[in-house]
């Protein structure tokens, strides 16, 4: 039944967000610490486990897949409720700071991807990865 999939997704989401909330409380951060990420990992693990045991039928999977497919419209709705006015009227300093942060991020993607590639091609990763990663992060700092 489709509701089994939706329920599985709900349980994973609630558990993950709850763990994230508790982690935040423990560390003393007023934010959810990776709740969505933890929930995703729970869903991935639960999904693989159930598939292996042949406990997931197509209907159940459809319950999860519907929400995965409705994701883009949800993101569009999210875009429509952003405070775009606030961003544009924030003044030149806020706008420049935002632009600069984004440019730095974009530029670093290919740099870090290279580190990732080294890692997968190397079998003795522990040693080889430590060196490039520490040098790049210290040079940025």
């Amino acid at each position, binding site marked *: 039944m489709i509701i089994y999939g939706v329920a599985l*997704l709900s349980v994973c*989401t609630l558990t993950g967000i709850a763990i*994230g909330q508790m982690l935040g409380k423990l560390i003393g*951060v*007023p*934010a959810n610490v990776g*709740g*969505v*990420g933890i*929930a*995703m*990992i729970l*869903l*991935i*693990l639960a*999904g693989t486990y159930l598939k292996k045991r042949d406990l997931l039928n197509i209907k159940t999977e459809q319950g*999860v897949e519907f929400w995965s497919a409705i*994701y*883009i*419209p*949800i993101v*569009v*709705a*999210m*875009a*429509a*409720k*952003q*405070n*775009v*006015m*606030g*961003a544009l009227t*924030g*003044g*030149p*300093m*806020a*706008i*420049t*700071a*935002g*632009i*600069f942060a984004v440019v*730095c*991020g*974009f*530029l*670093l*993607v*290919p740099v*870090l991807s290279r580190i*990732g590639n080294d*890692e*997968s091609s190397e079998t003795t990763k522990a040693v080889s990865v430590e060196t490039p*990663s520490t040098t*790049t*992060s210290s040079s*940025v*700092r």
Partner: protein
Amino acid sequence: MYESLLVVSNKYSLVMGFAVIGLTMWLSYWVSGRFTKGRVHGSAIAIMLGLFLAYLGGVFTGGEKGIVDLPLLSGIGILGGSMLRDFAIVATGFGVDIDELKRAGKAGVIALFMGIFSSFIAGVSIALAFGYTDAVSLTTIGAGAVTYIVGPVTGAAIGASSEVMALSIAAGLVKSILVMILTPFVAPYIGLNNSRSAVIFGGLMGTSSGVAAGLAATDPKLVPYGCLTAAFYTALGCLLGPSLLFILMRGMFA
């Protein structure tokens, strides 16, 4: 006439949201096919249209929630709110390949730290250029360039003025919106076309709404990988902002 419409849209706000967003999606995909021959992805156009609607909402109502401030369209707020957003993001994880995730794991963690440091430094250097010299303001504006949540959280913790906090939120908003708009166009140039670079991208950019929308407009298959790392970014930023980053700044600009 308007009164009765308002009653319907109030009672069935979420349904109204589905209808309006569905129409927006259809229009965007039509524009994408008709005028760009599919080169600009339909979802990228839809997101830009959404942001434009948000801008109009801000202009006409003076509110902070974009188009949602129009009572007729409040249902979009439920559809695009954090509950359904997180629910749908988690759902995208269903198609994730664990092995690919493991392979990108370490690079993702490095990306998280580098993303926070690089955004912070970017924010601080711009603040310096605009004449701020005290450690509290510099840290708050730098933290705002991390995300618009880290900015005010850090500012409140270290006692920044409300004016500086507003600036830091605005910097974070600009970042988030730029990531939404620019990602699909920049993606080919930075090699953002596989799960590993998506994990890294999520860690570097961090702004969850920006990453979610940017990757959705680039390639929906990449969404779970980027969102997974981005999920840890704001929390790590909130952790580092008022502590390590502030201490570093105080050491340099006391």
